[in-house]
């Protein structure tokens, strides 16, 4: 039996809204240094969301850059109804989903290496060392199988899993990004997990 599952860490606390609004206003007036500050705040989360959707570092690199460029070009249309973070996320997600639809089934994995901490995560180590039918599997293999299984999900289901289980966003935040209600997010998450469970059954027994 696994140790108690840790709650997914929430993304770092958002910066004070007033300061963000000020940066957005300056960027809307064409101030690139203000926009640079906004990019630095959200680059890691935007990149990660795209990377987990595509399982490809090069694609994520290109799409993340294009998303920020698109965001700057469309900044005048940003009214501040949602947070800047949600707005940029939407741009990145739409861009990624369009890209994936064009790419269709031509999936090419280009995975980032696992960082040093992965080998020291007791839950992960337990998952690999437990006597499963594939007990010879190592973390790198497991990573590849997991990414392959993710790519078998539809874009919407993959997105929900990415945002909730990998990035730790709440149902409400995801519902704003995906422009749907929280109930839809929950049901998509449940279905996506079922699918993943089925694809990875050999590694999860």
């Amino acid at each position, binding site marked *: 039996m*696994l140790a108690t*599952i*840790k709650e*997914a860490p929430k993304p770092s606390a958002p910066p004070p809204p007033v300061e963000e609004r000020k940066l957005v206003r300056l960027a809307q007036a064409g101030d*690139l240094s203000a*926009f*640079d500050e906004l*990019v*630095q705040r959200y*680059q*890691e989360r935007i*990149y990660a969301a795209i*990377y*987990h959707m595509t399982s490809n*570092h090069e694609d994520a*690199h290109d799409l*993340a*850059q294009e998303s*920020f*460029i698109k965001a*700057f070009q469309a900044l005048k249309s940003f009214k501040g109804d949602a947070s800047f973070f949600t707005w940029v996320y939407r741009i990145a997600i739409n861009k990624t989903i369009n890209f994936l639809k064009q790419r269709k089934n031509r999936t090419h994995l280009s*995975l*980032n*290496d*696992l*960082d040093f*901490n*992965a080998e020291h*995560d007791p*839950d*992960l180590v337990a*998952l690999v060392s437990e006597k499963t039918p594939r007990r010879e599997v190592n*973390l790198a293999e*497991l*990573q590849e199988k*997991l*990414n392959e299984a993710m790519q078998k999900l539809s874009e919407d289901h993959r997105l929900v*899993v990415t945002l909730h*289980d*990998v990035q730790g966003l709440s149902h409400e935040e995801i519902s704003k990004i995906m422009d749907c209600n929280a109930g839809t997010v929950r049901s998509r998450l449940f279905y996506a*997990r079922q699918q*993943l*469970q089925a694809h*990875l059954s050999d*590694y*999860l027994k």
Partner: protein
Amino acid sequence: MPEDFDKLVVLLRMKRHEQPPPGYFAGFSRRVIAQLEAQQPARSLSWWRKFLADFDAKPILVGAYSVAVCGSLLYGITLLNGTRDDFQNLPLGQSTWSDSLSASAGVGSGMSLPPFSHATAAFPLTEGSVVLGEMPNANALFDGSLLKVQRAKAGNTLLNW
């Protein structure tokens, strides 16, 4: 959360450990800003530069503009020829807009042109005379002489320029 998904959720957490190469994010925003700066001059181009840039981007526009310009030119030439024919068909001695034009041009330039009459148009060919076919039409039209030339031509005579 159903208990069944415990292991799966742990496994999905592994994806948080997938990280791009060290230092990747250090230059990320710089690259974005560099691309935006590279696009800035294109936005501040004059309309004329943008017009030319459109030509570069869409070569078919070059053809379309060429056709339009040539068409306008041909239309202009056709119109000019039609006007010339109208002059040729004018009865001699009839006053036209070009008579008025010649009068006003004469006033404005300090020159005065002699009033036209069929008799004064018919001069013998002398030194300094210009053969009709060699006369610069644009100048002639401006000072009203064209009318005289056309009339003279109609009478198979030469005009002392």
